[in-house]
């Protein structure tokens, strides 16, 4: 049985594409057959984040319009034999595809893949409607900021109204130093407000920028963000994995300094 998961957020720039790339790669590392679909028609990005931008011949719109067969448009990732990407079209717009066509396209992919991951565009218009049309499950990405959380709340409402059965939350770009000072909402604050299940929390990590620069997802690597993404993949498979301890451990000297700072 394959599962179709949409990665969405409402607000732009919170890490949907990075999450899609890393969760998809992580699931492939766990021997699942995975296809990533970039549904952001006109603003394609998943290909560069994955480092597959030079291998695009056909795209999503070509498949929908019948210009090519599905197999011709899918890019196989040479690093992971189980992982494929269906890139988006750069020179078209969201109206080139309808929700019904997306459902049909996804149903065709269900036969060959265990997980179909949809990278959703920002916003709640046509592109969003296309992306969620065929989804069984949604991962809502947010950052601990008022604007991102407000948009996530709206998205969660819309997902419920569109009968996406399962919706889980990823809190991205946590800065534990700021959380510790009380200058950033913590994970509990965010889950409290949005009232959905948490599937992962990703610390703000320089390594993410570096890995995106290189076009190599960092899931599974030794850094905190890499571990956090790997844990999300295990939880998607239904395994119980304890949440990472993101707390900054301060040395005795650091603690002393903090005490003096307070007084």
């Amino acid at each position, binding site marked *: 049985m394959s599962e179709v998961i949409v990665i969405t957020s409402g607000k732009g720039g919170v890490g949907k594409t990075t999450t899609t790339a890393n969760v998809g790669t992580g699931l492939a590392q766990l021997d699942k057959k995975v296809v990533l679909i970039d549904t952001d028609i006109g603003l394609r990005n998943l290909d560069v984040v994955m480092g597959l931008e030079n291998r695009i011949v056909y795209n999503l719109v070509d498949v929908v319009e019948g210009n090519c067969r599905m197999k011709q448009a899918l890019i196989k990732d040479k690093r992971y034999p189980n992982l494929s990407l269906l890139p988006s079209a750069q020179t078209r717009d969201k109206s080139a595809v309808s929700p019904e066509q997306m459902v049909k396209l996804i149903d065709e992919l269900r036969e060959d893949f265990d997980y179909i991951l949809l990278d959703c565009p920002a916003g709640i218009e046509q592109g969003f409607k296309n992306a969620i049309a065929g989804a069984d499950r949604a991962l809502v990405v947010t950052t601990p900021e*008022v604007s991102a959380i*407000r948009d996530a709340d709206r998205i969660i409402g819309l997902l419920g109204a569109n009968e996406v059965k399962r919706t889980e939350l990823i809190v991205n770009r946590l800065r534990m130093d700021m959380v510790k000072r*009380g200058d950033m*909402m913590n994970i509990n*604050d965010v889950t409290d407000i949005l*009232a959905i299940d948490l599937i992962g929390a990703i610390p703000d990590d320089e390594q993410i920028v570096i890995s995106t620069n290189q076009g190599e997802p960092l899931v599974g690597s030794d850094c905190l963000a890499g571990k956090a993404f790997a844990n999300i993949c295990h939880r998607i498979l239904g395994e119980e994995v304890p949440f990472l301890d993101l707390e900054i451990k301060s040395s005795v000297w650091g603690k002393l300094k903090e005490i003096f700072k307070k007084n």
Partner: protein
Amino acid sequence: MGLMDFFKKKTSGDIAKDRLKLVLVSDRANCSPDIMEMIKNDIIQVISKYMEIDAEGLDIQITQTESEGNNGNVPALYANIPIKDMKHPSTCK
């Protein structure tokens, strides 16, 4: 609230959380100020049939309240209607 919390200044994280909670209540209720005004006027009309109320002092808002079932918090319409005079004692027991 502990004694320590009493002295502690509200952090910007706390402020963000409080502001979000408020704004999400009205977002979720999907109720524009225009509609709230219409509800308010209708309430004044209906209650005025039975008693004299202070229309100026009337306050309605949508808030969160603990559900009696197990749904957690649910939105509720809260109305504070000051009564000036029980005009028709026979109609309202």
